């Protein structure tokens, strides 16, 4: 015979639907966020993996002044390398600000993927990279003038050799505004004037299982061959050095651990709230449990009974969350990728380990925490349940309270009896307002960071050179990139050593004749002080160097050390007087071929702006989320107090207490706890934020100063108060609904 106890569950759901729905909502959205993130990230990973073979992504390209000969093709073929024409025309001044490459139709390499619309067929058709098209507001059906010709935009595409749009391979950040690629029909491409055309050849190794070192020798052989055969090579870029190709696959999923942690913290919190709910339910039903146990129900049967609501919500949340994640929510994250990366339609992948991670694990966490709590509670004897002695021995005695008015004393008792709920309320408020603080605060903090970097940065352009060049102007120095072990982040971080002269214009007062001076941001991040030792490593040679810090130089723009130029050169065994870097306030006219890297002020500031742009959606999600969590947490945890005291409230009503007085007894304590928690939590949250920041900074190469303007704190408290006020309306209604007959009928 089926146990009838299960009939209580739908009735319980019906009676407490606000509570359960709220929990379900948080759970569903948490899991939806987690699963859609996993699905989208998995999809992009699959896409970048797939295009390597399915779309014949190149292993590299070279550009030559004149077309290569048939013999050259034959030679490469003998070397088991397939080389294909991949010609393009370049428009350098699209709407005066952007560079656009127009590629010929591709048949054998870097096969494009259609995003929207169709491939160009006619001579005046063009398909534009979708990221660039979105950034510049180009729509299908628009006309567009490039390389002196007007084209009809018939589609948007993604090119396998441009999954990230880097204008120069030496650039620090992608540039989706000012650089785009596009595709023409063969007919259309043939109509373009020769002066716009660049002869690019893209190649693929026939052997698809080459080791990296084989690839390297093959590619060096190719370069050698091209030079010796008199081809004038302008660029040679293997795929593994081409940011436009390798950036996305290496970048993707780097934030997965943070995301996963976020999901699990939330799930654990939900599990915790469920434990509180179940716990208060058990206290309320102590006598019933005692009776059932006395009648012969086993501990297991009772645990199972009280576990079922949690199990149902957990399963439902996990199923709905995944459905929502794989259908509606996935779009949010895909869009997030589409905005920044030129990928084709992201395939929805179904990855079993990932799926388990977003279904089984949350359910397991919730069931685990709850059954543990239930099991502990149910260890008490049936008799103690019958006598409602669920607290440990000491608590049983009524506590002496100061001799204040009755109402006050009663209020204190309410607080005392509901300590558990209030502690959870405190932690709930702490967690959700911390999320909120993070969501709201990260933007001003990043802006502050950008501002300090801007103020601190002493130059406008930095050119890192392959070799000294005869350009006029600028300050010449020697820069060496080092790695140093960052204990807190358990990883190496990059440190630039600037070899400067005593009279350095850009780093005034940074010069020390002995040892090194370090930038204040490095000092802050690593916790280094004067006289401390800093060990750095040259990752090329694996050689280590140890320097003594002689000075902290107030500089926030980079993780840098400064030392005498000649000392640095000697240390690195370089020629006296040589340099590899020019700093300047004006743009210098240095040939691309001499440059390793060109970094402008805008690049540096843009990096943090770009971060904010790409985080925008996520931050919005976090903010909405935390407000909802706020609402649900506050509601549930304060409702627990009312539910637990329903009988007392009913008695109070019978005794003739006014609603106002009842509110004072059962709501005011919650209000006080909520408001005090709100305020008390702020400094704690700020502290946690500070530590989180150190942790976050450990993942990036910079150092984020902790900075929160006062309005952020005010906003948090404001949102908290408004949320609580809304909840109170619900509570007043539910107090009014408690019938007086409860007191007379339901004896406990």
């Amino acid at each position, binding site marked *: 015979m089926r146990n009838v106890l299960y009939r209580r569950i739908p009735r319980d759901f019906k009676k407490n639907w606000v509570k359960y729905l709220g929990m379900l909502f948080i759970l569903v959205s948490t899991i939806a966020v987690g699963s859609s993130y996993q699905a989208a990230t998995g999809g992009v990973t699959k896409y970048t993996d797939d295009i390597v073979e399915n779309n014949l992504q190149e292993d590299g390209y070279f550009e030559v002044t004149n077309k290569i000969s048939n013999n050259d093709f034959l030679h490469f073929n003998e070397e088991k390398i397939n080389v294909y024409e991949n010609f393009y025309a370049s428009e350098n001044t699209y709407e005066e600000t952007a560079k656009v490459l127009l590629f010929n139709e591709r048949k054998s390499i870097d096969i494009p993927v259609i995003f929207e619309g169709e491939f160009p067929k006619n001579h005046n058709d063009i398909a534009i990279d979708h990221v660039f098209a979105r950034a510049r507001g180009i729509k299908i059906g628009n006309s567009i003038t490039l390389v002196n010709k007007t084209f009809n935009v018939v589609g948007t595409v993604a090119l396998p050799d441009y999954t990230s749009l880097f204008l120069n391979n030496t650039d620090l950040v992608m540039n989706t505004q000012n650089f785009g690629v596009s595709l023409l029909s063969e007919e259309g491409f043939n109509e373009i004037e020769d002066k716009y055309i660049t002869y690019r050849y893209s190649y693929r190794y026939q052997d698809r299982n080459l080791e990296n070192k084989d690839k390297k020798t093959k590619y060096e052989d190719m370069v050698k061959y091209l030079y010796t055969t008199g081809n004038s090579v302008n660029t040679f870029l293997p795929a593994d050095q081409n940011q436009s190709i390798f950036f996305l696959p290496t970048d993707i999923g780097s934030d997965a651990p943070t995301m996963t942690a976020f999901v699990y913290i939330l799930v654990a919190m939900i599990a915790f709230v469920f434990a509180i709910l179940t716990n208060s339910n058990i206290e309320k039903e102590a006598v019933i449990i005692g009776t*059932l146990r006395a009648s012969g129900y086993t501990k297991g049967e009772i645990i199972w009974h009280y576990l079922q609501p949690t199990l149902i919500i957990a399963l439902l949340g996990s199923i709905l969350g995944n459905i929502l994640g794989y259908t509606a929510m996935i779009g949010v994250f895909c869009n997030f990728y589409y905005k920044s990366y030129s990928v084709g339609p992201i395939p929805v992948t179904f990855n079993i380990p990932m799926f388990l991670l977003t279904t089984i694990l949350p359910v397991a966490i919730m069931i685990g925490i709850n059954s543990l709590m239930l099991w502990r509670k149910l260890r008490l004897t049936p008799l103690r349940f019958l006598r409602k002695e669920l607290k440990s021995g000491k608590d049983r005695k009524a506590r002496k309270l100061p001799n204040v008015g009755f109402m006050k004393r009663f209020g204190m008792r309410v607080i005392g009896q509901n300590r558990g709920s209030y502690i959870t309320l405190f932690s709930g408020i702490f967690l959700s307002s911390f999320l909120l603080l993070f969501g709201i605060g990260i933007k001003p903090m990043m802006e502050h960071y950008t501002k300090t970097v801007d103020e601190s940065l002493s130059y406008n352009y930095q050119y890192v050179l392959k070799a000294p060049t005869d350009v006029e102007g600028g300050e010449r120095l020697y820069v060496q990139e080092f790695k140093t072990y960052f204990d807190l982040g358990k990883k190496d971080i990059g440190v630039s050593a600037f070899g400067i002269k005593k009279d350095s214009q850009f780093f005034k007062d940074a010069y020390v004749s002995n040892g090194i001076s370090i930038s204040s941001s490095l000092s802050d991040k690593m916790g280094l002080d004067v006289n401390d030792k800093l060990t750095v490593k040259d990752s090329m040679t694996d050689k280590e160097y140890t320097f003594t810090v002689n000075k902290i130089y107030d500089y926030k723009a980079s993780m840098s050390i400064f030392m005498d130029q000649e000392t640095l050169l000697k240390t690195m065994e370089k020629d006296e007087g040589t340099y590899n870097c020019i700093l300047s306030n004006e743009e210098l006219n240095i040939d691309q071929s001499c440059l390793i890297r060109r970094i402008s002020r805008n690049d540096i500031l843009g990096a943090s702006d770009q971060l904010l742009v790409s985080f925008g959606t996520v931050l919005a999600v976090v903010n909405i989320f935390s407000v909802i969590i706020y609402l649900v947490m506050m509601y549930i945890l304060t409702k627990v107090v009312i539910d637990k005291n329903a009988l007392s409230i009913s008695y109070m009503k019978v005794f003739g207490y006014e609603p106002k007085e009842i509110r004072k007894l059962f709501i005011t304590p919650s209000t006080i706890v909520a408001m005090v928690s709100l305020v008390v939590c702020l400094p704690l949250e700020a502290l946690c934020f500070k530590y989180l920041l150190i942790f976050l900074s450990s993942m990036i190469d910079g150092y984020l100063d902790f900075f929160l303007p006062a309005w952020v704190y005010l906003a948090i408290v404001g949102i908290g108060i408004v949320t609580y006020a809304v909840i109170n309306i619900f509570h007043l209604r539910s107090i009014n609904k408690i019938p007086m007959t409860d007191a007379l009928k339901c004896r406990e």
Partner: protein
Amino acid sequence: MKLKVNNVHKFYGTNEARIEVLKGINCEVLDGEICVLLGPSGSGKSTLLNIIGGLESADEGCIDIGDFCTANMKERELSSYRRNNLGFVFQFYNLIPNLTVKENIEVCAHLTKNPLDIDDLLKTLGLEEHKDKFPNQLSGGQQQRCAIGRALVKNPSLLLFDEPTGALDYKTSKEILDLIEKINHKYKNTMIIVTHNSVIGEMADRVLKLHDGMITSNKLNESKVPAASLEW
């Protein structure tokens, strides 16, 4: 089923505060007997009943019921002992508020393979027309009937009542006692009824008197009075 209490001692508290609540109880209740346990408040009636019911363990001595002996039983065994042999009825009815009368009874029917026929039982209890009501829609007497039904549905060999009429008025109390008697006739369960109302002893087969943790009298009742004719 025959019940035998062997030299049961029970202590509460520790050190100086340690008091002996039961000071060596010995008695026997025969199969199908109604036994009324009388005594003033604090004399240890509930404690003894709880020990018999396996809700509490004796510090010394044991209970023999049929083939079982409660001494040295583990919690799990006690639970199955209760499940298979016992029905409890308390002063306060302890019904599950969001289950109907019928469902409240079904909760315990679930515990046995051969429960009594529930509709039949509802008829006996006089709850037929109330079977789909929730506890808060019932009078105290009706709630107690339901609680008795819940204890009875398993058809246990031993039914324990702790002040079953303690919360009821004169008339309702008599109805409940009448019902208990009827059930005893019909199903032949052994019954122990704890009360401080000595009149109830008149309907019993056996009357035990407890005073200060000791049995002061153990008498078979020669002149049994039907519950309906009790007066106090």
